[in-house]
């Protein structure tokens, strides 16, 4: 029976000088499913993950694996497997040697390096220098490093970036399989569409704060309408005055509120509508609205 380990962020805050990269982040990642950690570039995903892994010292708050900080794990690579976006390789070292260096440090048998090279489909490139690797092959090597210790928890930062379509299908299958084995899988991405077929649960980050957490089903069904008027600025003012969250869409204003409230607000202000319809945008558009207006929604 596999040990089940959660990832727990508790009020994690990290400032870089005056910049609040991560602001009071709290959420829990459960085992047995794939959790998507989403947000645009600069939202604080990488800083959160690096704090979790002990690479960055948080300003306040904690990020732990079932209550244990990364640096206090007795066998870190056997508990947590990590592939970070910037996880880099010395170009002069071969892929296999890169894994052997890590295996030696973590007390993992050497034979495991060949196993994970096989598992990630780069066995035949194992004795080549990493300097000549494509981005897709580097991603696979990064994943091989993550799987080296056969870990209970996987933390993967943008693992799909740079993979070809075949590679994307492969990694989706792999992530699902790892979650079904009872492992905890946290996958970051700046594109919802990249992971929406894979993840069971999402945590959406914008400007260093969680703006949405839940299953993808709740996420898609959040009520929103598209509304427009010949007097769009007037309409916007009326909706804002009514305390409704307003964002700009392609064909009008997008309001995350039931249509009846939107109509009532416009009527009270005496504004004639030219359009009032339920939003049929995909998850991606809702996602973009959430993160695009992150300050308003997150506040």
């Amino acid at each position: 029976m596999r040990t089940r380990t959660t990832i727990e962020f508790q009020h994690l805050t990290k400032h870089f000088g005056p910049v609040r990269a991560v602001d009071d982040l709290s959420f829990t990642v459960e085992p047995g499913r794939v959790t998507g950690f989403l947000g645009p570039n600069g939202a604080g995903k990488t800083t959160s993950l690096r704090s979790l892994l002990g690479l960055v010292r948080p300003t306040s708050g904690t990020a732990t694996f079932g209550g244990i900080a990364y640096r206090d794990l007795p066998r870190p690579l056997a508990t947590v497997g990590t592939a970070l976006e910037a996880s880099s390789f010395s170009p002069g070292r071969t892929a296999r040697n890169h894994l052997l260096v890590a295996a030696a440090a973590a007390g993992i048998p050497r034979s495991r390096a060949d196993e994970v090279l096989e598992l990630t489909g780069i066995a035949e490139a194992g004795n080549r220098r990493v300097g000549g690797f494509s981005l897709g092959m580097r991603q696979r090597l990064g994943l091989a490093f993550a799987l080296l210790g056969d870990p209970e928890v996987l933390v993967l930062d943008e693992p799909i970036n740079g993979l070809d379509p075949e590679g994307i299908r492969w990694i989706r299958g792999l992530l699902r399989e790892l979650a079904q084995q009872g492992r905890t899988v946290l996958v970051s991405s700046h594109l919802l569409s990249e992971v929406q077929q894979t993840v069971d649960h999402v945590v959406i980050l914008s400007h260093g704060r969680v703006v949405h957490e839940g299953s993808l089903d709740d996420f898609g069904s959040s009520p929103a309408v598209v509304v427009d008027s010949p007097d769009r600025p007037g309409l916007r003012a009326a909706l804002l005055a009514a305390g409704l969250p307003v964002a700009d869409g392609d064909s009008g204003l997008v309001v995350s509120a039931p249509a009846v409230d939107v109509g009532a607000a416009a009527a009270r202000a005496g504004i004639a509508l030219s359009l009032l319809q339920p939003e049929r945008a995909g998850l991606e558009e809702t996602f973009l609205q959430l993160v695009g207006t992150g300050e308003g929604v997150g506040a």
Partner: protein
Amino acid sequence: MINAIRSETLKLMTTRLWWVLALILAVYVGFTAGLLAGLFGALGDQLAQQPGAPALPEGMVPPIVYSAVTAVGYVFPLILGTLAVTSEVRFQTLTPTFLAQPRRGRVLGAKLVVLAIAGAVFGVIGLVVAIGLGAPILTATGNDAALGDTDTWALAGRVVLAMALWAIIGVGVGSLIQNQVAAIVVVLAFTQFVEPILRAGTSIWEWTATVGRFLPGAASDALVGASLFTAFGTAGGSTVDPLEWWQGGLVLLAVAVIVSIVGYLTAWRRDIT
């Protein structure tokens, strides 16, 4: 800690850096030792042919030839140690390194141990070349190569120790100055330019000479006990005795320890972003 040492050893052995530097070291030391042996050998011959001319002090030449390993070669273990740290910063391999071993002090400790051994190996490589080329040339020019002399082998041991200490000074420098270009520029500027000037400058007055012998290069020469520079330094009539060999060794060790501790407390514990 054993695992960290094993990992650092692999890290050093699995790129081309160490043997490229070892090769340059061998060529440079070989050239210098061969040249010195040839020059002094010929000089000794000439002096011997001229009646009344001062003879070279007995037994002075072989140590000068063999200590070329440290006299010109100490910068190689120093650079190896520095690059062992800064290349990890440059290629961002500190991320996987600290993921596999989150206790950063252990990583630095392991690097110091492994680089001390690598520095000693550089010392052995240098000696093989210096003695391998120098001794036959000395013998051919009618000098005693002093290979049966225990002093020669004691000197060889001190050369190996000095090279090991220079390598760990390099690790300390790298942990403190993590930018690879900056670190190499500092190392080269200090060893090739700043320190020689300071050593020449401090030798002018007695009180500055007292301080100047604590410069790392001077301490290294004191540890090894013979080199081109000390040979000419004493010939220049300085009244201040150089440090004892063990004092020189302690000075180098102190430099390594202080630089490493400062590096650990400052740059080494920084966020890895």
